[in-house]
């Protein structure tokens, strides 16, 4: 049975007179890995390496012969792979996570299929309609599967489609608007997921997924507002500021209710970056950079202090 953790052993040893042999025994019994752990590790290691190398070998083989394959063979090959994968998902009676992972693999294969199509018929790389088609065609699987990594893939695709569309077609949209739009879309997904999770119990988004989407939302909001600050001409800028303010206020309220430090840290850091951008923009003098530097240090320190105080309060209230 493990009584201690490594940090405990370090602390106790620092304030006591344990001998080296004693510490060694403590570490061996409580921290270091035992036989069963080593056996699982070695098993996993060999299997993963073996399968990985074999798969890589097969991929390399196809890469070598790719140029000389007939175009029907190329597309047919990927189609066959996709059909096999989906067939396995439907008919294999194994763990739901394995099947969902295979479905995610099939979703990636859809993209590969369209990419090969684009390569064979020379439709041009990075065309936004490639990503759009990919997104549309896996929508059904995403809705049906209830699997967070697949949702993540879907969100990444939606964002990429939007970004490429703005870059290739709607070139007159100001950059602020593009990032603002991405912020709005990602935030809507986030709010929808949280709301559905609490009130309808339809879908339960795992915490890591919510964290990743929150980070993405905050990044887009920060980018949108910082670019808007430096660009100064976008008419849409005030709207974005208002939307961001509302969303951040909601976010803080939600974080306080949920007693989660993560949302608060993200919002705080984003706000600090935005205010720094404003400060840099207001004056072009060198002394302003010094001020910005001091401001960042002071604000981060303040935020950390507040967060730690809140954490203590929550711990005491809970325990």
């Amino acid at each position, binding site marked *: 049975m493990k009584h201690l953790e490594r940090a405990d052993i370090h602390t106790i040893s*620092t304030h006591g*007179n344990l001998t080296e042999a004693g510490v060694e025994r403590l570490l061996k019994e409580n921290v*270091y890995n035992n036989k069963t752990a080593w056996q699982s590790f070695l098993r996993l290691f060999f299997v993963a390496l073996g399968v990985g*190398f*074999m798969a890589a070998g097969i991929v390399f083989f196809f890469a070598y012969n790719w140029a000389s394959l007939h175009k029907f063979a190329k597309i047919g090959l990927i189609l066959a792979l996709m059909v096999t994968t989906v067939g396995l998902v439907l008919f294999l009676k194994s763990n739901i996570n394995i099947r969902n992972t295979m479905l995610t693999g099939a979703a990636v294969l859809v993209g590969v299929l369209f990419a090969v199509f684009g390569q064979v018929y020379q439709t041009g790389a990075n065309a936004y309609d490639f990503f759009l088609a990919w997104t549309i065609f896996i929508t059904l699987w995403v809705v049906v599967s209830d699997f967070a990594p697949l949702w993540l893939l879907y969100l990444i695709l939606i964002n990429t489609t939007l970004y490429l569309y703005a870059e290739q077609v709607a070139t007159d949209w100001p950059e602020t608007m593009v990032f603002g739009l991405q912020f709005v879309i990602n935030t809507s997904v986030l709010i929808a997921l949280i709301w559905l999770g609490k009130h309808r119990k339809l879908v339960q988004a795992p915490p890591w997924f919510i964290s990743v989407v929150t980070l993405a939302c905050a990044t887009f909001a920060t980018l949108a507002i910082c670019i808007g600050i430096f660009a100064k001409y976008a008419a849409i800028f005030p709207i974005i500021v208002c939307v961001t303010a509302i969303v951040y206020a909601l976010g803080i309220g939600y974080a306080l209710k949920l007693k989660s430090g993560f949302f608060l840290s993200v919002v705080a850091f984003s706000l600090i970056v935005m205010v720094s951008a404003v400060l840099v923009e207001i004056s072009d003098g060198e002394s302003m950079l010094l001020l910005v530097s001091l401001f960042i240090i002071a604000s981060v320190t303040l935020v950390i202090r507040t967060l730690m105080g809140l954490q203590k309060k929550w711990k005491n209230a809970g325990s």
Partner: protein
Amino acid sequence: MKSRAQIEAMLNYVQTVENNALQFDEEAILRAYETDEDNQSLGIKVLSVFGGILASLAFCGFFFVSGLYDSTGALLMFGVLLIGGAIVLATQIKKVIIDTLSVSSFIIGLLLFGFGLAKLELDENTLTLVFMAIGVGTLSITRNYILCFVSVLVINGSFLTLIISNDKYDVIHFYISLLTVVTAYFFLNESKIIAAGKAPAKLYSPVRIGLIFSLLSALFIVGKKGIFPLLPHLIWLSSISAVGAIIFLLPKILDVLEITSKKHRISIAVFSLVALSTTALCPAISGAMLIVLLSFFTNYKTGLAIGIIAFIYFVSQYYYDLSFTLLTKSILMFSTGILLAGFYLLTYKKLMSNEKV
């Protein structure tokens, strides 16, 4: 945070492990848990580091724009002030919130001091040695986690700079061997270092992760062709220390696995040696393998994750750089895969043996 009762339970357990009667400073232990500085949530640590980096960038911007760059005296003075200030802050006030200030102050101080020294047009070696001295000095004075980590990286960087500026590129093999031995010693002698005193115990964690990063960066330089103009037929020199360390670690691992028959032990050792010697031309692979094994042996999860990522990266890099045709590479990889899968099936029974009991 731990309650007094929990701490007493822990101390009672510890007493059962030792033969002599032990004394503990219970008040100090209680206080250590209350301040609990190293157990802050990851969010706060990351915020602290990012804040430090942003602040440093802004300050550097200020420095360049304002023209203070031109005054050597100001550079040196500010540099020393900031480095000294960082160390003093971190040593006197042991709070996490001071970490941001102290880290940014330290890094900015190093940069300024470096620029100042460069302007004095000292010999490059002297400059590097001064930096190394600052690193060692910081290590010996402060107990702050992040400052110690940065100091270890500074020392490592100084060594690499010495190698580069003197154009003695092949010395890196000797340096990597040294780093490998030190890292392996550090991992395997945790108890000796922790029991040696308060200072070594506090320095252990940051130095350990600093050593891992230093070793990986040195291996990266050797692993990626074209960064250093190395003599190709000497590359295997770096592999010797890593392979040697793995073979040294092997008996300890076999002890944990309770494989005691001499025949088995020798055959495993020979097989490992043969398998590792195939990677001799890429010391990065055996180095990463060593980090993975060491981290798993001592159950150091961060090191394990870093080691695995490095291992995958170095193997991919190696195969990418091979100048065979894709067909040859594919056959190579497939056969390696079959070999490994075969090894797995062979040892499957052995590795599952305990579960039935």
